[in-house]
């Protein structure tokens, strides 16, 4: 579904991403983990069109993404839930969700999509009229994830969704992701803290200093003591 | 705290220029006005550049000081030099009193509050003719006496030059002092500053007081130098004018406001034929600075120098 081939991103003299290739197959949950500064955000921004890159290519549904304007990518089925939530604080939960559906071609789906979100995160239904800015950090994160899903995407990229969330909420998100996978949503999970990824991902790419150091299933990676110690223990 | 040699050179030049303009009263006058504006700009920079608040009521405080000065001189028959500190402190206290409610605000809301106070005071100047002679203004203001001789000609410009240099020097001292550090912390992130033990409200009041002193002293010298004042001399456009010097030259630096005032203050006089376009040009400059050069001339220059490293 998404192919990144030999991607290189430079900021001035600084090599942020170096010849990274990764492939996300339809219906899978693929994770990218690595510390701060490893290059994960650069890759996410490049996919979203907010960063240019120096070489390589990004293909979505076999089309070169460079041919699509960033604002049109969501229309093609690519949704990104950004790091740091990115909500409209003075709008209610429901209004934020509706904003996420802005690009929907078929507005008839709106109710179905809202309900899907309310099932995944019951607290959103409870607080649908509450101003997003007045919710706690973790609750805002749930709204942000729901907003990303409102455009009925084919591929949804989550940039650090578990940041600041209580363990039980991380579990809920994990459950939500598994449930979405059953509904044929493809997920690209980008995280620093690997606890969520080891539970739900089909494959994990480990990024460090701009390069892919490991790529394997969670089970195999957890059996590798070096990887376990440096990247996975939480 | 090293003072670079080019600053000493600048100070020397500033102090010597009045002597060069000795015989050309037109140039001398422009010089005098410019020095006043350098002094005012240095003061406004302390609140705008260091603390991050937009003081639109600056000119109104100058006005309070100017009118108070003339009142004290007329009613109490004291000399300019005695009336100056009294009028200055009076205006500064009134300024702080009026500004106090707004000092807990910041950003846009402070600016709005400041604008309201400025406009109200301008109206007060117009509608209390008993003290201010209303819109007619007060003319034939006599210059200060020194050893029983009125100060005139280039001597007055020398005094204004000294005033400007003192103003720059004082703002320099503040910038490098612990007080200045607190101001900058408040501007950068006032919540963080408070959580590190900085009393944000009191420091804002102090900054406001210092800036009011600058506004007030400037106002007193302005009145006696020009010889004529009216409510229009101290309206919001005057505040914005000085703000423009600070923003154009480079806020939050010491040299910036000086450069801004030196470059822009003489313009209305040198380009008298373009008088009608003066406000348009000011407006264009404000837009240009906000969009293209938020750091002002000197700020942009410093950033360029740093990027070369």
């Amino acid at each position, binding site marked *: 579904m998404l192919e990144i081939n030999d991607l290189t991103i430079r900021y001035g003299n600084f090599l942020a991403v170096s010849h990274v290739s990764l492939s996300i197959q339809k219906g899978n949950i693929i994770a990218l983990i*690595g*510390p*701060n*500064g*490893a290059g994960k955000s650069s890759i996410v921004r490049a996919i979203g069109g907010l960063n240019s890159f120096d070489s390589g290519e990004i293909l979505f549904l076999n089309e070169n993404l460079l041919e699509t304007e960033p604002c049109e990518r969501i229309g093609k089925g690519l949704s990104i839930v950004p790091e740091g939530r990115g909500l409209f604080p003075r709008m209610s939960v429901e209004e934020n969700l509706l904003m996420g559906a802005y690009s929907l071609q078929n507005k008839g789906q709106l109710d179905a999509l809202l309900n899907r979100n309310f099932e995944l995160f019951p607290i959103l239904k409870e607080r649908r009229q509450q101003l997003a800015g*007045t*919710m*706690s*950090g*973790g*609750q805002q*994160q749930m709204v942000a994830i729901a907003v990303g899903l409102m455009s009925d995407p084919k591929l949804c990229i989550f940039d*650090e969704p578990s*940041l*600041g*969330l*209580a*363990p*039980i*909420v*991380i*579990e*809920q998100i994990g459950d939500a992701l598994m449930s979405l996978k059953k509904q044929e949503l493809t997920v690209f999970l980008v995280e*620093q*803290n*690997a606890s969520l990824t080891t*539970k739900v991902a089909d494959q994990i790419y480990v990024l460090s200093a701009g390069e892919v150091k490991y790529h394997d299933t969670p089970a195999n990676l957890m059996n590798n003591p070096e990887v376990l110690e*440096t*990247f*996975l*223990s*939480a | 705290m090293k003072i670079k040699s080019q600053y000493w050179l600048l100070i020397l030049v500033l102090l010597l220029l009045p002597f060069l303009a000795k015989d050309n009263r037109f140039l001398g006058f422009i010089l005098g006005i410019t020095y006043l504006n350098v002094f005012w700009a240095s003061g406004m920079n302390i609140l705008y550049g260091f603390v991050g608040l937009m003081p639109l009521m600056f000119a109104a405080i100058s006005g309070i000081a100017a009118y108070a000065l003339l009142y004290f001189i007329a009613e109490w028959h004291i000399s300019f030099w005695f009336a100056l500190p009294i009028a200055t402190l009076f205006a500064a206290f009134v300024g702080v009193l009026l500004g106090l409610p707004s000092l807990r605000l910041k950003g846009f809301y402070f600016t709005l509050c400041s604008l309201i106070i400025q406009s109200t005071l301008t109206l007060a100047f117009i509608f209390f003719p008993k003290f201010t002679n209303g819109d007619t203004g007060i003319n034939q203001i006599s210059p200060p006496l020194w050893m029983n001789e009125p100060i005139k000609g280039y001597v007055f410009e020398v005094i204004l030059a000294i005033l400007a240099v003192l103003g720059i020097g004082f703002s320099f001292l503040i910038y490098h002092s*612990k007080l200045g*550090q*607190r101001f*900058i*912390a408040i501007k*950068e*992130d006032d*919540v*963080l*500053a*408070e*959580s*590190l*033990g*900085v*009393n*944000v409200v009191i420091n804002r009041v102090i900054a406001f007081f210092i800036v009011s002193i600058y506004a007030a002293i400037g106002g007193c010298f302005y009145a006696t130098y020009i010889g004529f004042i009216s409510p229009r001399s101290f309206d919001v456009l005057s505040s914005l004018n000085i703000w423009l010097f600070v923003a154009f030259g480079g806020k939050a630096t010491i040299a910036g406001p000086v450069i801004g005032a030196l470059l822009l203050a003489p313009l209305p006089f040198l380009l008298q034929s373009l008088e009608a376009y003066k406000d348009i040009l000011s407006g264009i400059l404000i837009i240009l600075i906000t969009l293209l050069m938020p750091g002002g001339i000197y700020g942009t220059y410093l950033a360029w120098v740093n990027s070369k490293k």
Partner: protein
Amino acid sequence: MNNPTSQLLLNVKDLTIRFGGLYALNKINFQMNSHESLGMIGPNGSGKSTFVNVLTGHFTPLSGEMFFANQTMLGQSSHKLVEMGLCRTYQAVRVFGNLTVQRNIDISSLLLQDAGISKDQYELYLDWLNLKPVLNKLAKDITLFEQRKLELMMRLTLKPKLLMLDEPVGGLATSEVNEMIQLLRELKQYTSIFVIEHTMRVIKELADRVVVLIAGEKIADGPPAEILMNQRVINEYLGSAHA
């Protein structure tokens, strides 16, 4: 802290605050001694950050009392509490981004000035936190982990008696979390710590006692082992993974 004369550091009685119709904190009672390290956990929106904000003077409580080292905290402004020895860090890292690391530290040292830490202590902290290599960089240009360490350095210059840390490992990578836990463990020699966290490993390894907040109420208070087995905590906060 290996201080034999441990004093009552925090004494909170019936602390209550309301936002609109909701009780963000409802009659919270708890105490903390200077030799203890406390943790606080709870679901998102349970009132943890509000608790810190009330204690550090950002919000005025509706009712209740709070004492820091036997001095009342009610009505004291944030900066006054800092003078009394109570410091805090924020959930999202907060430093003066446009200033250098050195300037950031200088600004923190302003409060105590001569009464502050000695030059030796200063150098000790700087080395311990490994901030010397980045002193001249702008605070916004250093890594998140370095920023978090800068936050610690800035608070240490204020000679805090109690440092409240709101999610200190938030956003850190796994290896950095390990390092931070070690740093916080060592931090205990310099000040008492109160840590709000979602990462259970931090709580397990650092806290002597854990306070659990759910929907604005304290529902449990005890050693980590006990808390982590509390059924309500598991149901409403930890989930089955941690059971």
